[in-house]
């Protein structure tokens, strides 16, 4: 329907939508209620499950547009973009919401170019204002916020994970499932292989609700095990400052900050991180910030909710112990 707020589904490649979809469908439902529209999910996949469809409905999708075809796997932009564009041109949704993920940040950019629409990437707030959408997004790696508006629909947005509130799950809710059959073009890019990272057993940095991060104060790569022990206890991802990455202590994919990942976890714990401006830019939208540093003058204490001035080599193991006690009880 024309008032539809579309949410492009991010899945685990096994037929299940990722949890971040609860956030985008929650936000879409909230906005659609103010714009006489409804939240709808658009799912391109080679494999959907009934449970996955129900999950989307419970998170707020009133309708699911499902395009299920082996030709869609693995994701390739030049295949997915025309499929989505054909659907969008036919159905004229009011908004198209994606999530910030490896595939969707590329896919929505290409789709916006194909539709001639504006895209507000990596947005952290959305609001209806006088019948039109206004998005808020961090710029200069979060040193400032920009309010964005569109010249016309569809309003296209990608949402930063962990920022938007999921709606209340509607147990037993069912969505209408539409199975359109748009033409699926052949691919240009040939898939060669997927190389899995050695699993740390810890969540992905940008998706994690809790992040434990280490800086120069860790003194060497071998000491990250102290933070990993803590992270395992509380189900956190482990990140690092640019200083630690540039020293070669951690691979770059773990870097938080202006030339690394931007994160917004519910809880951030920084160990031996001074808080250079480019690091703060990457994590200052975390809900609760804790800093543990020997130097009481470290800039990170200026934005921390809780700080401990002390030696991380003493404090971190104690914290691990205390969390263990708490989570057992």
């Amino acid at each position, binding site marked *: 329907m024309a008032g539809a707020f579309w949410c492009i589904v991010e899945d685990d490649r096994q037929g299940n939508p990722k949890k971040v979809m609860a956030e985008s469908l929650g936000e879409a439902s909230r906005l659609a209620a103010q714009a006489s529209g409804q939240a709808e999910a658009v799912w391109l996949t080679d494999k959907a499950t009934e449970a996955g469809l129900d999950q989307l409905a419970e998170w707020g999708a009133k309708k699911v547009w499902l395009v299920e075809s082996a030709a869609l796997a693995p994701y390739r932009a030049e295949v997915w973009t025309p499929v989505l564009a054909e659907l969008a041109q036919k159905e004229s949704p009011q908004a198209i919401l994606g999530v910030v993920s490896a595939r969707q940040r590329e896919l929505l950019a290409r789709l*916006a170019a194909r539709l001639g629409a504006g895209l507000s990437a990596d947005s952290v707030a959305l609001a209806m204002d006088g019948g039109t959408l206004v998005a808020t997004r961090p710029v200069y790696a979060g040193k400032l916020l920009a309010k964005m508006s*569109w010249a016309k629909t569809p309003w296209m947005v990608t949402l930063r994970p962990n920022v938007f509130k999921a709606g209340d799950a509607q147990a037993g809710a069912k969505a209408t499932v539409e199975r359109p059959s748009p033409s699926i073009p052949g691919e240009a890019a040939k898939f060669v292989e997927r190389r899995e990272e050695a699993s740390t057993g810890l969540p992905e940095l940008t998706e994690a609700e809790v992040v434990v991060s280490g800086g120069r104060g860790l003194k060497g790569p071998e000491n990250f095990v102290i933070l990993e022990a803590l992270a395992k206890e509380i189900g956190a991802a482990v990140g690092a400052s640019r200083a630690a990455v540039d020293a070669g202590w951690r691979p770059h994919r773990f870097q938080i900050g202006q030339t690394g990942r931007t994160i917004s976890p519910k809880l951030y714990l920084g160990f031996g991180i001074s808080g250079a401006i480019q690091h703060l830019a990457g994590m200052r939208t975390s809900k609760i910030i804790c800093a543990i540093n020997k130097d009481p003058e470290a800039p990170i204490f200026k934005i921390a909710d809780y700080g401990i001035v002390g030696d991380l080599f003493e404090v971190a193991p104690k914290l691990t*112990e205390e969390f263990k006690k708490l989570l057992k009880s």
Partner: protein
Amino acid sequence: MKILVLIKQVPDTATQVKISGADPKAIDTAGITWIVSPYDEFAVEEALRIKEKRGQGEVVAVSLGPDRVKESLRSCLAMGADRAIHLLDPAWAAADTLTTSRALAAVIKQEAPALVLCGRQAIDDDMGAVGAQVSELLGWPCASWIMEESVNEGGTAITVGRQVEGGLEIFELPLPALASAQKGMNEPRYPTLKGIMGAKKKEIKDVKAADLGLAAEGPALSVVALEALPPRPPGRIIPGEAGDAAKELVRVLREEAKAI
């Protein structure tokens, strides 16, 4: 093999960015040190390495922006790019991502390179969309956030490793194609003195919207206002020796902050 590298000039990462007093939609540019966006430097470096490995070819740096952008293009020439193209026109003063992408795509059509490289995003507006949009407008395959690449001997395909959640996906893209660089793929070289001197003699060609046959179009997306970040509530230091402080921190995280 001709390679175009799309670069953007941005404020240095150490800049304390402030909103302009005169225009609430713009930043105060006084005193800013401008640099080539770090991810774009990885792209320039990779282009130079491809050329060196093949023993022939041309690397062309392209950027859209005001006069000061020449300095950044000059830096790319000093690194070793052969020539540069500067998209310089008042018509692009308010260019959004899509307008920029259209202009870049038009230049690429004229230049007809085998490969276009750019950074995964510019570190000013952090939109991270231009590379993907340019490839869409050209109808090319693209690979975002690549960590590694190799061009085949015939110069007809590039194999890339793109960073995705939990690993790398390896794809072979037929050329022409576009790829965006992620940090970690290389260590950009510093320009040598010889490079800096040589750069002064290399060509930077100015191109206007009319040269590309582009009609003026309003932006699809505009900045309504820039805002400073809301201040964070004042925090507190938890006193005591390590054991006591840790215990107290865990207590407040559970009871006050409800974060655990």
